[in-house]
């Protein structure tokens, strides 16, 4: 029998605080409304370099790939 947890972890009772990853205007709009928000200055991993992305995956997945 699953325990009774508040649906979606009680989000509706919490103050909304946002981490914005991507388009800056979304966080500008939230700031304007006084909503606590942190904008993430996101870049593509490894600057988009596929070779480095592959090396990173290899290390993170913890297996020899070839």
């Amino acid at each position, binding site marked *: 029998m699953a325990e009774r*947890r*508040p*649906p*979606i*972890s009680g*989000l*509706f009772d*919490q*103050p*909304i*605080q*946002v*981490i*914005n*990853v*991507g*388009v*800056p*205007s*979304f966080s*500008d*709009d*939230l*700031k*304007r*409304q006084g*909503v*606590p*928000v*942190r*904008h*993430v*200055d*996101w*870049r*593509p*991993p490894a*600057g*988009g*370099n596929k070779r480095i992305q592959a090396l990173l995956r290899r290390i993170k997945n913890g297996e020899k790939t070839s």
Partner: protein
Amino acid sequence: MPLLSQLKKDTYFDSVTLMLATNELKKIRGVHQAVIGMGTDYNLESLKRLGLLSPELADATPSDLILAVDAATEEAAVMTLREAERLLSVKKGAASGTADYAPATQAGAAKALPGANIVLISVPGDYAASEARRALDSGRHVMLFSDNVSIDDELELKTRAVEKNLLMMGPDCGTAILNGVPLAFANAVRKGDIGVVAASGTGLQEVTSLIHRMGCGVSQAIGVGGRDLSEKIGGIMTLQAVRALEDDRQTKVIVLLSKPPAEKTFHALLGVLKDVKKPVVIYFIGADPVPIERLGFAAAQNLEDAARTACRLSTGRQPSPLLSDEEIAEKASKVRLTAPSLRALYSGGTLCDEAQRILLPRLKTIHSNTPVAGCEKLPNVYQSRGHTILDLGDDEFTRGRAHPMIDPSFRQEKILSEYADPETGMLVVDVVLGYGSHPDMAGAVVRSIEEARERSPRPVVLAATLCGTEDDPQDYEKQRRTLEDAGVFVFPSNVSMVKFIVSVMSHG
């Protein structure tokens, strides 16, 4: 033909910023072609195609910024590059100028804002799933604005979210209002007791705005992404959201908006909804309302009806109509069609669909780039014919362009070309206000209408549906006046505008 180019190593801007900047540059006199973009293979290919790939730019990597200009004179080219610098430095300043350090990772952001409970993700599709995963793993809810996320990833993310008792809204979720906070493209809507779950962005914007205009309010507006009710996803997030609203003390009425779900999902969904103690209003766009009503739910006929029914269930009274049928007919009687065809330029896909559906029986033949059942697909989406109702936000039109709700330039081009077509007797648009949308879409639309009139002075019936509330950042009344002063009939809902179209077309 003076060609100038510049490469800025290790300088990143998001695609929306770059596209908007490119637009500005193209307006400079003497500029034939201007490109500002990241050094991705795609952009380098485009530059090659346009003959703008100088040797300096050939080695650009995806983390480098490339600028290329083709102008009539050397002067114009130099000025254009300088203007590009200015535009981008303003943008950089705006993002970092508040003296707040913008961290490079979610983990960094969480350190600065430990109480963060939602992560809003709008990075390119290739990377969006891993960002969403990161957010869920750190115990935070996700609003996944990005599209081009695979359905397998969507399933994995939503399953993970349910296990962790979290919301995973999206992918392709453009609108949400949580605890009264508008997120991404959303309107400032009064708080109340109607909870909305939607698989559609503009549908959610229209319904929540109408609920507000009818005097009621919204407890929560949750987007679940366009594919949630597909067979593969099985409505996981819709169910999660509905259960949450059922449990929520503030919510008295639940509204569900979506394209018709897959068969199996439909039954699973109805199975759960049957046990929900609160009244549920269902609008499955284009679905037959009868079987839904037979099961005891209120089935809406259209978006305005969904809002109206929800308000009725919330207050116990029928809300007063926004615009009566008589008032609509009265407006229609003031005009005459001088050419046979309707051209509709929508920025919201659901509004486009709704218009097609309601108008098909009346207009008999309708063309679109996103035709609903019974309508025709345009052989060339850039070439309208007969009655044409377009979704300018569809992928076909947004490749290399920002979405029409942010960037009016493509719609402005279309207004000019449709107006110039002697077939066009009636031209209509949607103007969607709210956070995220353009600050003065009415002004942009009116400017191109005025230019169109100058080029082809003939009477075309003009109408707009203005979606939003008086609390939206754009000043609803001002937007309405701007349109009306230019001779555009303004309507508070898509449905009322469509009724106007029917009326004009019938006595036209």
